[in-house]
């Protein structure tokens, strides 16, 4: 690529002698793939414009298909079938990635565009108390209150249990019990969220009789989903703490539990916090268990976890969609934007913490 003027050079094989070129056969010039891509894009969008049905996604798909076919065919005639297959697969792999970005971009764009029209100070600070479904009023304050209260209690239950279990698995766990816990934590990760909700329904029915819905029930259901996530991430982080740190502490005569509290946990604190925030981000969007346990018809602000139904952001979105009117959909989009913003903030905070306080390993 540096000094050569031969158009056949592939760049990667280096400059072979003249004799080798015949063995390698011909090869497409380096500018061929981008050129084909540009032409495909032009042809695709031109054809769609001519038909009067231009759509970005359709154009992209046709471009990709055209590119794959043309490059594959060109490579098969100029080069050989093996290289043609390689180029074809390269195109397919790129298309796969593009396909995955499509829903992400589309979803985020739709939520932001649709949600921004209604998301304002008013929407965030009033509840739905006294607002009829089709009235052009009301907001999500009660749902934010519920989400904060329920997720907070769920975190209060899950973090100690999850953290202590992780400590047990890393610091104490030997033998059958540890193996059983590891296995069943994996099993617990796979529990469908609706089943966690049903479990609490069944539990509450046994404890308090039928029809009892309150925020605490929702928090317990979320804990069932959150505990395994906390255990998994904490376990990984605790295993990263170097053994020498523990040994140094033991050598100074520090008891094991103090070693864990004063040496192991502070070393891993950044990772632990990150893991917990990611777990929170996961359960904060859970809907199904809350529909079953905390109710889906609360409209007023309720700070009491143990009395009465409690709305939350995801359930708010769901129940507004079920009502189906135009105003309801607007509210749902705005609430979805609020929820996504909260989740993204948690994610950002988690990454920030892990970057700022990352444990210093080794020397």
């Amino acid at each position: 690529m540096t000094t050569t003027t031969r158009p056949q050079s592939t760049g990667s094989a280096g400059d072979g002698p003249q004799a080798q070129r015949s063995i390698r056969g011909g090869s497409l010039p380096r500018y061929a793939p981008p050129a084909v891509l540009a032409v495909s894009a032009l042809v695709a969008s031109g054809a769609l414009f001519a038909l009067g049905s231009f759509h970005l996604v359709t154009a992209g798909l046709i471009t990709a298909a055209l590119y794959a076919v043309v490059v594959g065919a060109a490579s098969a005639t100029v080069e050989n079938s093996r290289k043609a297959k390689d180029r074809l697969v390269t195109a397919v792999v790129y298309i796969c990635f593009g396909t995955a970005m499509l829903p992400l971009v589309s979803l985020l764009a739709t939520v932001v565009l649709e949600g921004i029209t209604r998301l304002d100070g008013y929407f965030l600070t009033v509840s739905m108390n006294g607002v009829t479904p089709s009235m052009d009023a009301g907001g999500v304050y009660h749902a934010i209150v519920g989400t904060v209260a329920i997720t907070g209690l769920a975190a209060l239950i899950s973090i100690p249990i999850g953290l202590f279990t992780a400590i047990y698995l890393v610091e104490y766990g030997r033998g059958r019990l540890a193996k059983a816990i590891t296995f069943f934590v994996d099993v617990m990760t796979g529990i469908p969220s609706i089943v966690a909700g049903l479990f609490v329904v069944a539990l509450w029915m046994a404890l308090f009789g039928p029809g009892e819905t309150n925020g605490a029930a929702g928090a317990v259901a979320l804990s069932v989903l959150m505990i395994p996530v906390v255990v998994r991430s904490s376990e990984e982080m605790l295993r990263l703490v170097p053994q020498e740190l523990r040994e140094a502490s033991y050598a100074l005569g520090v008891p094991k539990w103090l070693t864990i509290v004063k040496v192991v946990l502070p070393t891993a604190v950044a990772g632990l916090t990150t893991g917990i925030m990611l777990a929170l981000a996961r359960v904060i969007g859970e809907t199904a268990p809350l529909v079953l346990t905390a109710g889906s018809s609360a409209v007023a602000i309720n700070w009491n976890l143990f009395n009465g139904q409690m709305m939350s952001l995801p359930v708010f979105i769901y129940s507004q969609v079920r009502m189906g009117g135009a105003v309801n959909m607007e509210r749902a989009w705005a609430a979805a934007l609020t929820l996504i913003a909260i989740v993204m903030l948690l994610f950002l905070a988690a990454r920030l913490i892990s970057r700022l306080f990352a444990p210093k390993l080794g020397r």
Partner: protein
Amino acid sequence: MTTTDPSATAPPQNRGKRRVGDVVFANTARGSGILILAILAGVAAFLIIQSSDSLAANTANFFTTESWEANTRENPAFGVAALAFGTVLAATIALVIATPVAIGIALFIVYYAPRRIAAVLGYMVDLLAAIPSVVYGLWGIGYLVFELQGFYDGLNTYLGWIPLFAGPVSTTGRTMLSAGIVLAVMILPIITAMSRDVFKQVPQGHQEAALAMGATRWEMIRMAVLPFGRPGVIGGAMLGLGRALGETMAVAMILSPALVISPFLLQSGNQTIAAHIALQYPEATGYGVSALIAAGLVLFAITLVVNMGARFVVARRKEFS
């Protein structure tokens, strides 16, 4: 240093009495672990106990009946046949769409993308996993179903002779295929993450050996990477399947349900267990709640088998590699 130090003989003395702090701490830790086992046992136990009275009162065969008449105290007749079929169908659609794409993405991130931006691109795929399922449902019903309408019409026109795509096409787009497509997007990051991890672990020597023999990049991947990564990909696909089987909101919001066993993906109809529970629960009376818990138990059992299978496949790979 060579003189006999009293502390050298101290440990045997200390071994007898354990410090109070150590005992308390160790037992708290062990207790938390045991509590997790108790919770899981409780989940199974309470579901079985609370579902038993409706199952005892059920006048129809629970596993072969399609209809759901449980909201009564007199002769309830309900079964999970249609629901179980719908659950498996939706998850299968999701898996068929997501697995090839996920493998492609994983290959792209590990072998094709420029090193510098590969991590960022991987993070973007992970973002898909961070979006709450209810937002997927909202996006599906408020945006995607309208966009898919033209695609469905085309599919029916050109591939209508395949029974799966037989008409008449639903005019609302609230079909099994729409639900399956949204589920596919949701499980994409799970399968991608697992595949990416195993592809990264492929021994450098295998790859270099293949390239040194003159293999193209694709041939290297086909001969060195894919055979090595297969168990990981299968395990990831099964974990994704487990997630798709239990996913509630996206299906509940998108699908226009009917309790029938129907293979027509472009028409409304079918229903999954999870979505059925979420939709029916607020209106359940009589044996209704108990019957829904019975349906949940079936879902729990299905996902348990799939997830344990996935763990088994992944764990076996670890032993060999």
